[in-house]
């Protein structure tokens, strides 16, 4: 029998296995993240390489990409976000259902990159909360995969009550969202 994944810590007995529900849900979620590739520029091309067969994002469970935010778990912002694009990105993020995570790929999405100018948003964390940043210009597919793996670690270890917690609500309020 092939071992698909490591079981979480728990108590085993004849015919049963008891563990925390957080671990099971986290395990299921982390291996089936459906990303939304918000690819704007060059980092989007690197993402295309990451999705392709050589680096294959599908092995991590992200075989099905979704361009509809309503059906996506992970918002991957890849590329330069102009100030004019800011409200669009925010609207896409607000349309995502909980639980949702944000991965900021590349220097431009993380901090504006080399484009320190009047038209470029100096980092998407000015408008939406970000979970993992992947620096690079552009980051290699291996680095993007590393970012995905870090997201997976966050997903696996997250409490299922986190989205209702006061701390999370405070975080959203700091961005002006409910």
């Amino acid at each position: 029998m092939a071992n698909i994944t490591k079981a979480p810590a728990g108590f085993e007995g004849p015919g049963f296995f008891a563990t925390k529900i957080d671990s099971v849900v986290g395990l299921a979620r982390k291996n089936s993240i459906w990303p939304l590739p918000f690819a704007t520029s060059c980092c989007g091309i690197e993402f295309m390489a990451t999705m392709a067969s050589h680096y294959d994002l599908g092995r991590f469970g992200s075989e099905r990409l979704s361009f509809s935010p309503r059906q996506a778990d992970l918002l991957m912002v890849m590329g330069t976000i102009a100030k004019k694009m800011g409200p669009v990105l925010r609207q896409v993020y607000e349309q995502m259902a909980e639980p949702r995570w944000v991965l900021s790929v590349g220097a431009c999405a993380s901090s504006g990159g080399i484009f320190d100018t009047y038209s470029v948003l100096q980092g998407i964390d000015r408008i939406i909360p970000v979970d993992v940043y992947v620096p690079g210009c552009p980051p290699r597919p291996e680095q993007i995969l590393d970012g995905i793996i870090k997201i997976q670690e966050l997903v696996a270890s997250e409490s299922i009550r986190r989205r209702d917690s006061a701390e999370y609500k405070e975080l959203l309020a700091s961005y002006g969202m409910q």
Partner: protein
Amino acid sequence: MDAAFVSEKIKSRFGDKILADEMLYDMQCITIRQESLHDLVRFLRDDESLGFGFLTTMNAMHFPDAGEKFSLVIHLHAWKQNYRLRLKAFTNQDPPTFPTFTNLFPAANWMEREAYDFFGFRFTGHPDLRRILNMDDMEGWPLRKEYPLEDQARYDKDDKMFGR
């Protein structure tokens, strides 16, 4: 068609308004007074022997140290003769105001919006003069020389590392 032909045709109509007529790297460049630019473009388009029916581009320029700071540059192209022409008009007026070229070339619509968005040029009679590439609520004209290059909302820049 060649430069001499074009020069002669426009000199007969606009003789005293032409400020310069030179060949720069194989392209004829004519500098004309601000108030006559629109008439010149109309003449170049409508005249049978010239027929400059294509507006290649329209740009604004800003040189704060020059005698006349702002200028509008228009590139025209005559299809049949495959001849290109550059027109310039300089002015010190702030905001620089020109009559709209949309009645001559529909393509001028977005080109004038770009000149408005980045330099603050006004075009009287333009159907919809508003910002095109920048945020609608932006203040200032980004491509003017006095506009700061870097985003002013950053707080984490170390002056020493940036040579200030």
